[in-house]
């Protein structure tokens, strides 16, 4: 490889450096013998660092699992209190308590609507059980229809009737006048 100009100068400097390196170079034979006699490098240090890294990794994984657990419970679709809202307790008679199935299977009340969507399974059940279930469903539906939010009263006002109802033609003139504005009176005179 031909070097010119700057490269030639760098090469000369490297050559000079090489001469200096050669003076520092130890004997090959001595180094080779030492290498042959050298004991195998202990692996304890490597194991220690590996153990440390593994322990850290395990700690991180455990903490991640613990952290993600409550999150999973909160985000599950079956949980009733997703938003933390508690509906008011209503004094509705839930009807007779459904008898426990003969095979020991218990039916949670929260899953009744889901069960309703499966008519084949429902048809297979005993009549008494289905009747009891229907009763509870009806009572629950009634309770839901009667339920009012706690803020409904805030939406009500004294003038609600005036705003929501329209006067009828059959009504008395006096009643009609009460709806008319007072500015129309001078015109009549």
């Amino acid at each position: 490889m031909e070097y010119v100009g700057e490269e030639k100068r760098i090469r000369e400097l490297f050559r000079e450096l090489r001469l200096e390196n050669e003076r520092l170079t130890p004997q090959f034979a001595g180094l080779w013998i030492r290498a042959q006699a050298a004991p195998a490098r202990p692996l304890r240090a490597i194991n220690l660092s590996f153990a440390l890294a593994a322990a850290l990794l395990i700690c991180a994984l455990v903490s991640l699992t613990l952290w993600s657990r409550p999150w999973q419970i909160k985000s599950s679709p079956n949980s009733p209190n997703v938003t933390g809202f508690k509906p008011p307790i209503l004094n509705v008679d839930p009807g007779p308590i459904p008898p426990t199935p003969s095979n020991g299977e218990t039916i949670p009340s929260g899953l009744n609507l889901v069960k309703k969507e499966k008519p084949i399974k429902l048809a297979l059940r005993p009549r008494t059980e289905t009747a009891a279930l229907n009763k509870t469903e009806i009572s629950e539906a009634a309770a839901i229809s009667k339920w009012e939010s706690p803020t409904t009263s805030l939406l009500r006002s004294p003038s609600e009737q005036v705003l929501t109802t329209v006067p009828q033609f059959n009504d008395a003139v006096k009643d009609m006048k009460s709806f008319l504005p007072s500015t129309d009176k001078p015109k009549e005179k």
Partner: protein
Amino acid sequence: MEIAQLKAELERLHRASFGWALSCCRRDPSEAEEVLQTVYVKILEGKARYRGESSLKTWLFAVIRKTAISEHRLGLLRRLRFIPEPEHQTQRIPATEEPGTVFERSEAQERFQRALATLPARQREALHLVFDEDLSLREAADVMGVSIGSARQHYDRGKKRLRESLEQEIAYGIRWRGKENPGIVS
């Protein structure tokens, strides 16, 4: 390759290997010696095996480079007290230069070594392999474990930075001399 044949080849390349180890160990002779010894141990134990995929020099230099890096990391860990100091290391000769060597070194060489020390490791390695060891850029890339394009970039940038550093050193030298002895610089 037979161990006797390998030994002969290693002996032939010993000086170049030590020079390269010095370059990889930031010109610390005792560290370079330890690295080279570790490389020989690796070869003897069969941990580093030459498979003839490249030239022996390229392979050996790559092993030296990797060993130097791992030794450097181990040194850092030792400083953090994770690893006990090996027995043979406690008897290590401190890396001091003989006074004669320093005086014999030319001023230009002194400047050059200072400039070389300021370069990033990859650039320094590329320049050393090409200019000192007469390796091609492909061989240098193989030693450094990078692509040829990357090696070329390191080489070009290294040359540029080395020139700039040398120019700065010279300019500083002239300014300094001018201040100390105004008669020198006209």
